[in-house]
């Protein structure tokens, strides 16, 4: 199935760097969850290792199917995704105040994690088939919003999964912008977006769950109530700041094992890394992520066709957003929305979907045109 010529174009950097990052993640999860009393170590790190293995298999599986087949079945896959989102509202499992999981025997997964990829593929197909000699008009944008965004957005926000819903909206806007929008629409769109933000905010506010509101309050004024809602952000800043330039050293961090930092192995794992490895370690980690994002952007340019370019663009944007929002909230620069750090945070579904996303980049990259100039 895999052509020898394809192997020639295979970029070993993507899987190796991804594996490296995820292994640093495992080490950090191990440190964050190490017990302080005489109880056995929780097996988060082991489970994460299994998921990395599964992720690598998914990566190989993803690169082995030509993305053009994926594009062919894009709409059907999208429909299946929407049905799964429906299903999760009725048969989904509750956890931490939200209904996000579907249980299949021993497995449970979050359909919204995979839905993003299906969404990107479907939207890419739509965009690539359009006449792009002139920028998109308002009518097309509204049509696309109705077709691709409206229903999934409502379904996801009902779970509720604020983070994924926002990512979906941002993803759509960015991809459409990248496809080319009339300048007037782009500018008015951005202005309307910014101006209406408070209004949307207040409408959203009414519909927000209690914990979501608290997170927003905490973001605006983290020191207002150090033991209440601002606690996460404060402790996260303390955790990161206390690392200093060189860090406290691996397994020397205190904020995680002593549980001062909540969600220490999931959403706030970066803080634990920053505590133990310091500023210098963070720079190295940032460079690794930057490497993956750069590979994505480079692949957009090299893709053999428009649909491939759009898919990689979407995947790269999503990956970047996840990284930016997670690190941003850990640093106290973005509200806490419950978005994991890609490849790093503990969580099986996310690990799987990230390796699939990187597999798609590799997939398109391998199948670029064979002409050498």
């Amino acid at each position: 199935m895999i052509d020898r010529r394809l192997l020639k174009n295979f970029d070993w950097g993507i899987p190796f760097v991804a594996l490296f990052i995820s292994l640093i993640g495992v080490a950090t999860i191990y440190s964050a969850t190490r017990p302080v009393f005489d109880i056995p170590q929780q097996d988060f790190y082991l489970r994460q290792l299994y998921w990395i293995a599964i992720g690598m298999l998914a990566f190989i599986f993803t690169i082995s199917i030509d993305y053009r087949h994926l594009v062919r079945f894009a709409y059907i896959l999208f429909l299946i995704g929407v049905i799964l989102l429906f299903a999760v509202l009725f048969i989904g499992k509750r956890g931490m105040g939200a209904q996000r999981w579907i249980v299949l025997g021993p497995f449970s997964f979050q359909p919204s994690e995979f839905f993003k990829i299906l969404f990107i593929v479907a939207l890419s197909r739509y965009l690539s088939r359009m006449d792009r000699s002139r920028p998109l008009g308002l009518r097309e944008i509204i049509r696309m919003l109705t077709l691709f965004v409206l229903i999934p957005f409502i379904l996801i926000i009902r779970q509720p999964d604020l983070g994924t819903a926002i990512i979906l909206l941002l993803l759509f806007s960015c991809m459409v912008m990248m496809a080319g929008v009339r300048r007037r629409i782009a500018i008015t769109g951005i202005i309307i977006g910014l101006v209406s933000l408070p209004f949307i905010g207040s409408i959203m506010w009414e519909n927000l769950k209690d914990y979501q509101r608290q997170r927003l309050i905490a973001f605006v004024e983290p020191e207002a109530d150090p033991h209440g809602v601002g606690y996460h952000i404060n402790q996260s800043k303390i955790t990161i700041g206390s690392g200093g330039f060189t860090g406290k050293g691996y397994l020397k961090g205190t904020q995680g094992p002593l549980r001062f930092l909540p969600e220490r192995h999931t959403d706030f794992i970066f803080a634990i890394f920053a505590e133990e490895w310091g500023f210098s370690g963070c720079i190295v980690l940032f460079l690794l992520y930057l490497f993956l994002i750069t590979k994505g952007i480079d692949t957009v340019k090299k893709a053999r066709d428009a649909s491939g370019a759009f898919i990689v663009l979407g995947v790269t944007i999503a990956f970047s957003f996840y990284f930016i929002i997670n690190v941003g909230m850990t640093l106290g620069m973005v509200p806490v929305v419950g978005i994991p750090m890609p490849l790093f945070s503990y969580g099986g579904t996310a690990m799987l979907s990230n390796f699939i996303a990187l597999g798609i980049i590799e997939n398109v990259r391998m199948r670029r045109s064979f002409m050498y100039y």
Partner: protein
Amino acid sequence: MKMEERVRVFSYIILAVFALFILRLWDLQVVKGRWYREISERNRLRSIAIPAQRGIIYDRNHVPLVDNEPSFDIAIIREDFSDDPERLSLLAGLLDLSPEEIEKRLKDGTGSPLSPVKIKQDVSFKEVAMIEARRMDLPGLVVEVVPRRNYIYGRLASHVIGYLGYMTPRQLRDPAYNDVPVTAFVGHYGIEKTYDSLLRGKAGRRIVEVDATGRVVRIVGIQRPVKGRDITLTLDIDVQREAEEGLRGRAGAVVVLAPETGEVLAMASAPSFDPNLFARGISYRDWRRLINDPRRPLLNRAIQGVYPPGSTFKIIGALAALEEGVIDSATEFTCRGAIEMGGRSFRCWKEKGHGRISLYRAITESCDVYFYEIGKRLGIERIAEYARMFGLGEPSGIELDGERRGIVPSMEWKLKNLHERWYGGETLNTVIGQGYLSATPLQMARMVSAVINGGRLYRVHLLRDRPIELERTIEIDPGSESFLKRALIGVVEDSNGTGRKAHSGWVRIGGKTGTAQVVKKGQRGVRSKRNRDHAWFVAFAPEDEPEVAVSVFVEHGGQGGTAAAPIARDVIEAYFRADGSGLRADKEVMERSL
């Protein structure tokens, strides 16, 4: 704009965000790194005070009066103990409390949800064992072991020993208490207060690492507490016990001094209180009850109560008259039951009068008229001078707070305080221990000591190790002294003596009765208990080389010879029994022969 350009813009934005993140990291980790490091250390490290064991307090024969015992307190960390009704009722059953009470205490608990809230103090060992067995079902439960002060004999000598409490706002500001943890108990009263700096030792510290729920993860460092110094008092527990036994059911005070050293062998004040109430932190209710009690149990009547000494003061009058030569021991006056002065009649307690009477009989029978005659000849200034010489009107130097001086009236005193001149009749009142004159029971015991030991007035003290301090030596003619001693023995031994009830079958006791009027003579219409006279008896024993000087005061006790003298005798007998000087055997023989 081509798509390629737009992608380039996208990559610039990504780079800009990374740059922003790095700036933020630099700010948090490098610029403010040390500050955040400190906060994270404060997060995880706690300094827990380890209370020091207070020193043990012994009596003069090394019998422990106060020591410490471990006390088990049950506390709950609210964060870990979600008030599940089943859990509450389990704990309630184990602690013999109602679930509502526990809930209330949890609700009232201040501080963070991570700091333990005391649910029950001073739990028995059996209860602790039962709780430990169910530990798994009771998360967040903490058994704290704290040393608690144990006043072994309860109320015994409570006014001398004193009690403990949390630091007062003034003590919190006092640099002398700087190294005392805020939660520690310090002495508030009595010896516990005076010698607090010796007794309290130095608290240690335990630096522990805690997790976010406040549970101790490990001990990082430890600074051991230094035990407080043990102290030995001059008190003799047997004498003290007898003194309190004598005052049982009454209000009053007993002081027993060693005349040759100034040591306090016993100091009792009644009613008393139980310092154990304070040891576990007195409840508001108990405290209100103590301070609102009209009988004032917290008052140490031996040093804080000032009363007219009544006829016990005649010792000073007689001594002054002999020393000043206004009479000699053979001088006789005639008592007709009263004497006129300034148009007023000054009566003797014996209305029929004593007839022709000598100084010896005037003392043993406590003739007032004889002393009026002395008073007329001495004048108030010389009486006051002798009173002051023997320690009245001045603090005895005892190591207890709040000692009162009493009043030795003189012309100058009256002019200064009452803005009035002195009347001759007031001299007559003073010489029989009435009027403005007032003294504490301790001052009276000290006075007796100096009279019978050749005029040596010592500083009174309670700490055995304290060096003996001679305040001054009063020149007394040996003849006067031996005459006076003989007369005081006569008070107890003669058939007409007013202190006959102090007679002991096996030790010779000398003394002087006193019956201090609360209401002026002739005004005693109402014979309620509040109007009854105060009973006094001051004493010493044995006749040669006296070893004890005693003063007994019974508030509204009536006649000194009836109410106070027997107490003095019992206390003195207790001293010689405890002393082991062979008299004990005598008494046993005597009792058997009865």
